[in-house]
């Protein structure tokens, strides 16, 4: 019998929402998933009994290399401010800047997981003028580096695994840990931003219930409308990488299903889109952000063609908060409406 995988979870400049999302895991639930993966939680701020000196001792033993660490998870940004001191987050119970603790621990771990876009890239905490100096473990926004530097490799020779999202879907984390536990997570399993491919081979667009509206450019005009939100409402679903409309949130939902746009929260820099989140920036009426891999001329040509061919049903429904014109079986010609 091998020893359990030891997991340490720390939080810094963030909201705790990735942990809270994770508590909603189902099939299996979080503690069952960790148990089945053979993971022992050395310490987690929301879950563990150990507090104060006992918690510090466990963290310090790892940082000093006296106790092994298989998986290190950071949730929240690394706070480097003010002026590089890191004192915007002092580790409770110590005089040490949290960023120093994070660094010492990360360099001892076999696998380092940045849980959420804050820990990966800086995220929402880095918005505005980023007065707090929020950075990710291995990125500062789109710039490689972050706290650990661009060449960082964990004990198993991997870069930081960026489970980006604001928040993460619980499965994005549990699948990564189950893969690690099975010895089945290596360099083939991450994308160009070091995110697990388990969820970033997809675009948010995939499986979006509005796809038919998209195809015919039948657009929503305001939040709550049923139509495609790309043209007017800032939706980045055709560019954003995640499986949100294939793997439902909280049983059945997604941002798009909630009738508000995708803000590409798995992407570095999503927190400063350069425009109002729910407003599509356009040049001469054409959205600036086109679907991934789509040549602009083709998009413009196809869009005008499909707009001309929009079925009445989609035109009727696009700018409404519920369907007003329903699909009808054409073989029942002559019969009006429902029985």
């Amino acid at each position, binding site marked *: 019998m091998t020893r359990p995988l030891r997991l340490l979870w720390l939080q810094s400049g963030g*909201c705790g929402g990735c942990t809270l999302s994770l508590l909603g895991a189902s099939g299996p639930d979080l*503690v069952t998933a960790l148990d089945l993966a053979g993971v022992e939680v050395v310490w987690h701020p*929301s879950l563990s009994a150990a507090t104060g000196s006992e918690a510090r001792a466990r963290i310090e033993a790892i940082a000093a290399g006296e106790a092994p660490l298989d998986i290190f998870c950071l949730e929240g940004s690394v706070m480097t401010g003010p002026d590089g001191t890191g004192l915007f987050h002092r580790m409770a119970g110590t005089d040490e800047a949290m960023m120093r603790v994070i660094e010492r621990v990360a360099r001892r771990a076999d696998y380092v997981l940045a849980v959420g876009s804050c820990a990966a890239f800086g995220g929402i905490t880095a918005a505005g003028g980023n007065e707090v100096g929020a950075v990710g473990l291995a990125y500062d926004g789109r710039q490689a580096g972050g706290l650990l530097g661009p060449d960082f490799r964990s004990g198993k020779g991997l870069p930081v695994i960026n489970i980006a999202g604001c928040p993460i879907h619980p499965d994005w984390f549990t699948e990564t840990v189950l893969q690690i536990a099975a010895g089945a997570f290596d360099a083939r399993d991450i994308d160009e931003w070091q995110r697990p491919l388990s969820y970033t081979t997809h675009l948010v667009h995939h499986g979006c219930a509005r796809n038919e509206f998209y195809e015919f450019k039948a657009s929503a005009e305001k939040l709550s409308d049923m139509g495609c939100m790309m043209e007017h409402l800032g939706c980045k679903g055709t560019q954003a990488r995640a499986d949100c409309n294939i793997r439902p949130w*909280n049983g059945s*939902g997604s941002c798009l299903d*909630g009738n*508000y746009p995708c803000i590409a929260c798995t992407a570095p820099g999503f927190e400063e889109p350069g425009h*109002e989140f729910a*407003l599509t920036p356009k040049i001469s009426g054409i959205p600036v952000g086109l679907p991934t891999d789509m040549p602009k001329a083709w998009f413009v040509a196809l869009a005008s063609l499909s707009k001309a061919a929009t079925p009445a049903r989609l035109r009727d429904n696009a700018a409404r908060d519920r369907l007003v014109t329903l699909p009808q079986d054409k073989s029942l010609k002559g019969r009006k409406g429902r029985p």
Partner: protein
Amino acid sequence: MSEPGNRLVIGPFNRVEGDLEVRLETSAETVVRAEVSSPLYRGFERMLVGKGVPDALVYAPRICGICSVSQSVAAAYALAGLAPGRVPPAGRHAVNLIHAVENLADHFTHFHLFFMPDFARPIYADEAWYPQVAERFTAIRGSATRDALPARAAWMEIMGVLAGKWPHTLSIQPGGSTRAISRAEKVRVLALVRGFRRYLETTLLGDALEAVAALDSGDALHAWSQGRKGDFAQFLAISRALGLSALGRTRGAHMSFGAYQDRAGGHLCARGTWVAGAAQPLETGAIAEDVSHAWYAEAGGKPQGPLRDAPAPDLRNQEAYSWCKAPRLGGQVVEVGALSRQLVAGHPLLSDLALRGANVEARVVARMVELARVVPAMERWIAAIDPDEPFIDPAALLPDGEGAGLTEAARGSLGHWLRAREGRIEHYQIIAPTTWNFSPRDARGVPGPLEQALEGTPIRAGETEPVAVQHVVRSFDPCMVCTVH
């Protein structure tokens, strides 16, 4: 062994949401003086300045992963100061439902994951009730966690229907909810609420919700709990054995901003204050933040209130020991939370339990009473939704103006105050519930509610993290990430 004049520094103080440090001066057997420190600063108020006004609804929920919807509701109410429209009834019900799902989930999570595991500590190994409690509530491994997590996940499926996802929805808007529901979704949401009711009635509370909500005195609660199955009755037995009603006492005022708006502009849980046993109206203009003991630059002069003041972070304040500001109501310390809400609402059981001051037991009982009171209200809101009616008034926001968004998160009163000019945010201030409860001292040297509650807390021989201190701190269900927004 604690010697007279000893100092204890407890941190990281976990199973609270976010970062907390508690510093104690102790005599041989009790806490003499407490300082509560929030060691993290996040900077949302300054981040929001200059953003387009609607973007507040993207940033604000991300202040907090546990009270995300409460932050959305407060922001939407504040933006409503710039909205000419009126929220249609179905939209009001939908927002109340989304908000209640989060608030009750927080009570549920707090009880099972944050609060109860402290009774499974080895220090209690000699107590008669220990073996059962250790089996049920040991952190991570206890059977209660295995039972509660799936029940909680099923409950949060209501968010998948009504709000797209949780945390961090954008469905809550000044005009209502973006997500209209169908006739089929209406019955599905009701089924999810009923499923949660079943868990509460069989496993947590052990009785009909209506019976729990109707308990009207400490004696009635005690009689009800005798021989009863369920985790709440187990807590009450422990509480009696350990004297938790005498622990974590505060004797100040309580406040509620009002939770779950009704048609007439009132609330299911009333807005007001509770001072010396009597409910009084709330003067929102009397709210101001003191930064004499926090790492912010003092503007000089009298605090003007959150619609005008915007203190900047400044580590040079030598008196400071926290990133938490010290909000005061008319200069007075006030406590907020489920207990405060039920005191303001005049609930007879909580009024009785808090007769000699708020305490650990009363704070926990109040959460159970809220679960019992609010779930039936949710069933009524669902029934009142007409799926053919609008859920949102889409009127555009005015470019200039100001607004105050006041609501109740699970852990107490939450307010957002904003001023807008030419469609941009010019000023944004947030006062979160735990900012009230875990505030540092003010300019007059008056300690915040937790600091007061900790004075006199007993310490057992040799304790470095006194278990009674842990009960007191966690009885407030603090959210530190909100506190230091």
